[in-house]
């Protein structure tokens, strides 16, 4: 737990140091993305396509949302994004559809199945970067990198610092509270849980809880029902509809947490990825898990 506090302090200090040599006007700049590719980005790109809901949300957070000219079909946050043209899927995107937005910067999710799209977009002379935004540390790193590219360095730093401070203070306030063991439900068939590889597992730590599947390295591992019964979680997190189904379902009622009605409803739209709302979400989660002891 203290490791998180230390890493956030490091990010804040690094940000302050970096702010000292801030340039007033963004230059043509190079960036190295999570595919390990170095690309030249135009000074202050004016037509940005973001094909990852998390980076889309990030762009709005740092004030670059108005320059967005394309998004995926899955981008719904913030509400303003629905007015931006829908360019289809974010994994294996339709390259021609992306080019039809005439972008001067494309931000992809750094999944292996997007390598080909990145290569094709660059061949069409469109600066393209790919970032993995899976963990809370990725949020700070990618926000700063994208802020530098779009010329919104100061806003990116403020966003990262604010979220960092919120997470650090939440962690400090929940540290002394008892940590319930939580199963975070993602999907029914197959049964998918939030695993240790997900930022949601990190968020649970910050909010003063332990994920029963924290030891699994995948972000959303498939688990068996019997294994879940064996792990006997204290609390289950699920959507409102799933909660209603669990409470009346004989199979789910084999779980102690369901029988004792300790199935809590949490906004599942956060599942997209660790974006600027990750701080506020951690606070809301802490308040949900520790009613009375933790008031936001």
């Amino acid at each position, binding site marked *: 737990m203290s490791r998180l506090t230390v890493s956030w302090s490091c990010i804040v200090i690094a940000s302050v140091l970096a702010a000292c040599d801030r340039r007033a006007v963004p230059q043509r700049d190079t960036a190295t993305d999570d595919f390990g590719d170095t690309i030249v980005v135009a000074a202050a790109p004016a037509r940005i396509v973001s094909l990852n809901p998390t980076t889309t949300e990030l762009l709005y957070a740092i004030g670059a949302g108005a320059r967005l000219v394309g998004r995926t*079909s899955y981008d719904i946050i913030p509400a303003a994004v629905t007015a931006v043209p*829908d*360019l*289809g*899927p974010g*994994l*294996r995107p*339709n*390259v*021609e*559809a992306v*080019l*039809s937005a*005439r972008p001067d910067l494309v931000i992809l999710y750094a*999944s*292996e*199945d997007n390598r*080909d799209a990145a290569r*094709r977009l660059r*061949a*069409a*002379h*469109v600066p393209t970067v790919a970032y993995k935004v899976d963990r809370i540390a990725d949020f700070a790193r990618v926000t700063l990198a994208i802020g530098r590219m779009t010329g919104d360095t100061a806003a990116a730093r403020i966003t990262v610092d604010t979220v960092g401070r919120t997470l650090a203070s939440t962690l400090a306030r929940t540290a002394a509270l008892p940590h319930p063991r939580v199963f975070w439900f993602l999907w029914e068939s197959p049964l998918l849980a939030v695993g240790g590889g997900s930022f949601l597992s990190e968020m649970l730590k910050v909010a003063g809880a332990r994920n029963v599947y924290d030891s699994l390295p995948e972000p959303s591992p498939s688990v068996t029902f019997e294994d879940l019964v064996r792990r006997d979680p204290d609390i289950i997190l699920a959507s409102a509809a799933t909660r209603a189904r669990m409470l009346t379902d004989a199979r789910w009622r084999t779980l102690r947490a369901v029988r004792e009605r300790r199935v809590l409803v949490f906004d599942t739209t956060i599942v997209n990825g660790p974006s600027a709302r990750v701080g506020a979400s951690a606070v809301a989660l802490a308040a949900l898990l520790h009613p009375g002891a933790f008031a936001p």
Partner: protein
Amino acid sequence: MTTARWCLLALTLAAAVVAGIMVGTLPLSPNVVLRGLLGTAAPMDIAVVRELRLPRVLLAALVGAGLGAAGAALQGATRNVLAEPYLLGVSGGAAMGAVIAVALGARAPLVPLAGFAGALGAVALTLLVARAAGGRGDARIVLMAGVVVGAFANAAIMVALAGADASVVRGALWWMMGSAADASWVSVRSLALYVAVGIAILLLLARAIDVLALGEETAAGMGVDVARVALGVYVAGALLAAGTVAAAGLVGFVGLLVPHLVRMTGARTHRSIISGAALAGATLVVMADLLARIAHPPAELPLGAITALLGVPFFLARLRRLA
């Protein structure tokens, strides 16, 4: 087949290729497309025409040519009008080899080789099963064996993907649905080699297939080495299936549909049926790929699903007539 009909086939293919290059998600005027081809348009438009559309259309044409020719030859050699790479388990075997290679982390050049091994394995298995049942000449037994081998290949793919990374699973699924979206000049060149060699072998065997179509005993009586010709057709069919699966995934029913259409135009010898099926197959897949690109923008429809939607009603109608 008359010269006029050959010209019609060639012109239809040319029209399909032109449409494939002209039309896409990004609206480009014919003038811009032309300047893109010549390299005098804006860099992004040149890239769209030269790097996205042109290789894609050519790849689709090669896939169609390969599958059409393979279907025509397999139908002739097995004297089974329902034979085609997909139904004989050859495509399934190729997909099994390729997906297992990808799941094991194999690099690009090894994947078609693994596909080829899988395709040959599937052909061998299908024929062994059919022969054990005493039915190499029996259309129904060969088909049934092919379908079962295809189902086995499918199951093997599922097992290979069970523990695989999510991006590998997405990639494999994409592949099994068939798509020309990943076309590049590298894949066009390598598929061109497979298709050229495969079709050349089939054309060399065309006369023998004509004789084989009269019946194995008749052919043997006329001095044709039946086993060798059949082996040649299966190997060439496996080569074509492996090449197309590696380049564009599973694109089914083209090999079934196209030879019938060509025979309906009056082609009788296998030299003209195979050549005609290559041309018509290319046209069909280029058109199907165009439909896949523009039917539901910005998402793309799976190419294999479109060819199956066209092929299945045809297959059912043929079955009904045979019954």
